[in-house]
């Protein structure tokens, strides 16, 4: 998925819960990509969403401004876990500037589902934690 091209959200055929819990989200929740601890991480950061109790740890190996490896561990709601699974997939092999420039809207586009006001913290925990890891440890 390319985050430069927002996902088509024309899902009028679907009911609300099918819209938010599309197959792709459930798939990433049940079968998360890049979910493992990195013992030799150069950057590491924890993120918590106290409202849902979502918690993740992001592990990165950054060499020459490039994300050579990115993984996570954690637990939480489908939105938070699918978001971090999708984002780690997206950022693998990209340079740091790309990661730093990712906006909230980019993450919503990556998820490809409507995010209600109450779930923004779940959806954005991934990018907030990644950017904190990069910025704090430079």
């Amino acid at each position, binding site marked *: 998925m390319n985050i430069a091209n927002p996902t088509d959200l024309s899902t009028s055929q679907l009911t609300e*819960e099918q819209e*938010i*819990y599309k197959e792709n989200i*459930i798939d990433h929740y*049940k079968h998360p990509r890049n979910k493992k601890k990195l013992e030799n991480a150069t950057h590491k950061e924890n993120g918590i969403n106290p*409202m*849902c*109790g979502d918690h993740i740890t992001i592990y990165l190996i950054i060499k020459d401004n490039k994300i050579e490896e990115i993984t996570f561990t954690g637990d939480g*709601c*489908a939105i938070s876990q699918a978001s971090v699974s999708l984002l780690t997939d997206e950022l693998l092999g990209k340079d740091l500037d790309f990661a730093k420039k990712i906006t909230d809207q980019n993450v919503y586009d990556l998820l490809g589902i409507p995010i209600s006001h109450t779930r923004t913290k779940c959806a954005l925990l991934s990018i907030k934690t990644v950017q904190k890891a990069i910025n704090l440890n430079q």
Partner: protein
Amino acid sequence: MNKLNSQKIKSDFPILNQKINRHDLVYLDNGATTQKPNAVINAISNYYSHDNSNTHRSVHELASRATIQYEHARTITAKFIGAKTEEIIFTSGTTDSLNKLVNSLKHQLKKGDEIVLTEMEHHSNIVPWQQVAKETGAVIKWIPITDDFRLDLTTISKLITTKTKILSLTHVSNVLGTINPVKEIIKEAKSINQNVIAIVDAAQSVPHISVNVTDLGCDFLAFSAHKAVGPMGVGVLFGKSQLLVNLEPNHTGGGMVLEVTKDNTTFNQAPYKFEAGTPNVAGAVGLAAALTYLSKLTMNAIEQQMHDLTVYGLEQLNTVHGLNIIGSKDAKNRAPVFSFTIKGMHPHDIGEILNSHGVAIRGGHHCAMPLFKRLKLNGASRASAYIYNSKEDIDQLIVAIKAAQKIFGVDK
């Protein structure tokens, strides 16, 4: 005994007559707050439309009406819980009641004194005590829960000692729905040490069961209006009159004094010395209207309906594959508060899908993190019923839960 007609009661609550996501709203988040009947909304509106003024201050007509209504609310509240009028202190809610009480009692605590709480307390009956324990060197001890989510009563004889100064416990658990035998626990505690100050968090019990402070034998009791069809921002602290005499106020200012000089202040008597500043008169008026509304239905009838909903709710939830009820499966001494987890689903995802079916529940740790740690859970969903809920509402809850499980592929 008259049986409640939940459909008729529902029609008294205008907010319940609406659709959420194309479904009739099924409001099952009553543990968090209840909805308000027209009787309460109109009482508050009438107060502001006709009688608003500050109390106990001016001599004009409106001041007189406001004062009379405020004090009348105190009388109604006192009657509702079997207290004397002067034993009712208006606060902003249970949390405020407990904080004010804890901070007034801390002068009576010293290093090594013991405070006994239970493992099923809400944060509002934990955190203030922790703060005071840090300040005074007092020690907190916990009454544990059993595998059936009830208090382990066999521990009380060991936990209450000559060092115990405080016993503070919830009447009904906001997570488990357990109705604790508070009367018996207080009786046993006082038989071991008659100086124990017994405090009851009645936030979840006052709406559900008859609460009588004399019968319970408690020294203090706290509850909120908003969980008993009253407005937000007003609550009650009951204190036995002989104990209020020597209790120091920790909020000071206008309205709670007899005389103020540049050097000194003489406090008014209880309950006024605990009500510094302009009170929430409209809130008290709304609370009185709420308690009057509940009294008309009668607490006996409410108790019976709550029991029927508990029986039906447990029965229905038990049929759902992969659903684990966090609370006793025995409806006896249990309120219709149904916390549960579903294998393979997070509480917030469950809540979101239920919302798309018009069903309002809560998910999370419900301000009881020590309890969740004890239960080895990160969180749970909670459906909590009240007087306007019917068996059909429980049915709709079950339909929505099953739909959620299907979406997540955990329905088989």
